[in-house]
């Protein structure tokens, strides 16, 4: 297993300005519990401790803000400890939408796909993050696709599949479709100046 995280990397990530709501860390915890059980959580916590940035997932408060570096450190540690591929990270994103308390705050807008995508999605982003910006680019209900842009959010490439999954998860609740595909079409880590996600459903 290739080492994808070390103390230096984490230290660097911790230098990034910006915060994120504890809910994203709680959804990580829920996913590991589901997939690996309590022992899995302990493994991740141990690894983070070794890296000098311990997290006690149980003590994380959903609505509190935490350093964005810690959120990326959690995801990278999980990926390394369990050797997760991008698909697993994508699934974590999908899973997070189902467990997130903040998403539940937006449920009242879910009767309207357009409202959620066009009006509420930037707010939802801001409810989670103090950095970056979510911009709805296009919604075509007839052709059944939506394009979302994420600007100023160059934390780590691991977050790209996670976000793709996250957007797919939200679409799951908005459209009654079992076939939803979400992919990153532009990436700031691959030469673009922002991230762009195309979400399609059938």
């Amino acid at each position, binding site marked *: 297993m290739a080492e994808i995280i070390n103390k230096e990397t984490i230290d660097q990530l911790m230098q990034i300005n910006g915060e994120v709501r504890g809910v994203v860390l709680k959804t990580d915890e829920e996913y590991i519990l589901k997939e690996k059980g309590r022992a899995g959580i302990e493994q991740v916590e141990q690894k983070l401790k070794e890296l000098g940035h311990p997290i006690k997932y149980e003590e994380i408060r959903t609505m509190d803000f935490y350093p964005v570096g810690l959120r990326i450190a959690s995801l990278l540690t999980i990926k390394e400890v369990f050797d997760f591929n991008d698909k697993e990270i994508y699934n974590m994103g999908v899973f997070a939408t189902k467990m997130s308390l903040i998403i539940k705050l937006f449920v*009242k807008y879910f009767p309207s796909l357009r409202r959620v995508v066009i009006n509420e999605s930037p707010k939802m982003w801001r409810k989670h993050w103090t950095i970056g910006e979510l911009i709805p680019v296009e919604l075509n209900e007839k052709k059944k696709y939506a394009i979302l842009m994420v600007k100023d959010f160059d934390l780590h490439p691991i977050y790209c599949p996670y976000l793709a999954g996250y957007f797919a998860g939200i679409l799951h609740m908005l459209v*009654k479709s079992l076939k939803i595909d979400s992919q990153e079409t532009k990436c700031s880590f691959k030469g673009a100046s922002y991230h762009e996600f195309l979400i399609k459903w059938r």
Partner: protein
Amino acid sequence: MAIKESLEEKKLALLADDLASLENYIHDLFDFSPLPICFISPIGVVLEVNPAFEAIANLKSYEVIGEPIEKILKKDEAEVLTKTTLEQGSVEGKEMVFFPKAKEKMFSQVFTKVRKDEKGEVVGYFLGIFDLTGIKGTENELREAQMALMNILEDSQAARKEAEEEKDKTQEIINSLTDGLLVFDRENYLALINPRAEEFLSIKKGELIGKDVDDFSSFEQLKNLATLIGKDIKEDLFRQELKLTEDSILEISTVPLTTGKTKIGTLVILHDVSREKIIERMKTEFVSISAHQLRTPISAIKWTLKMMLDGDLGAITTEQREFLNKTYRSNERMINLINDLLNVTRIEEGRYLSRPFLSEIAPVLQFVINSYKEEFKKRLISFKFKKPKRKLPRVLLDVEKIKLAFQNIIDNAVKYTPAKGRVVISLKGNDKEIMVSVKDSGVGIPKEQEERVFSKFFRGANVVKMETDGSGLGLFIAKNIIESHGGKIWFKSNKGKGTTFCFTVPIKKTTKKSRKRT
């Protein structure tokens, strides 16, 4: 400025704490609810579930959140439910089929209520599910129990019909019987009388049903029957004769009716023996007339032979005497047989009445024994007469009849005891009765024939070859004589070893009717 920022931060921290507390409270409340609850979007997507729902659906929240409601409900039913809820605001207690993961379908009752935002717009609806499996199970059990009861009822009706048919059949049989039947219940009240019994007793059942034997006595024609069966209805009556009229005679028998060991009543059977009795009487009359008619010429023959043997009709040769003696003895046997037949006919006609006098029995017995002394000697049989030293009380005897009875018993002992055998006659008595026994060391009576010993014309299979003489009437006559004296007669026998016949004569107080023999 710095103070202001610090205050804002404190307020935000407080709000964050409140929010966290509120979150925990909502979680706890949601988790606590034992009723499975989920929240459905207006387009029918599951947005939230509680632990009770996870348990009933056998699905984790992440497996069902974001999924269409059709994953757990029937598509058409789910559509109607969503539509009705959104239109009417709620649905209460609608029965639906619920499909938990990897489990059998579950009958459930659902409750819904729409959720609206602050502007009154519907944002989805809550769905509560109540498991009806237990109730449905109980319903099914009740339905099955109802079906079972219906079946039992049908079976009972069929059984009742069958029982009624059986009862009708039995009733028909009872009605058609040639015997009369009276059935008394356990309290001895008449429960049933068949037409034949009505006919015999010349009474209608309506007059008798529900009455006891005491009540029977109020009917003249039933008095004798009431006396015979007794107030408590004797259970051991067997073919007791009941003479209704000169030509109408019934045999009455009683049988206890039981179920298991419990007596439930008594059956009285009235069997018409009138015809048999008439035939028997005619037969007896015929035998009586025949015997009388025969006795006169045979007596004449006897006296003629006697005269010839005595030489009154002239001298006869030794050879002629020998033939005449044989003829005389044969004639004597014929006279004895005719006498026996006449005695039997008298017994059967009820004319064989005892004429008792107070007499001593020992001399009577001695007289008979003396008449057999020669015979004992001739047959090389030793005999002994054991008498008590003290004098026995006199008893009422028809001396001639007792002589005959004793003679018939001792005659058998002599005839059926082989040479060198032994016959012991004993006489003893107490305050109540005198008992006579005749014990021989003869051939005995076959066990299987013991029951018939006192019957008319009975002769043991083992003695017929030994002694061709004998009418088979002796013990029948003896029994009737003893019983007409109020005594009893019985025997014990051991085939090949001997037989002991015993009889008793009761010692009764002298009454005016009894007379001293002169």
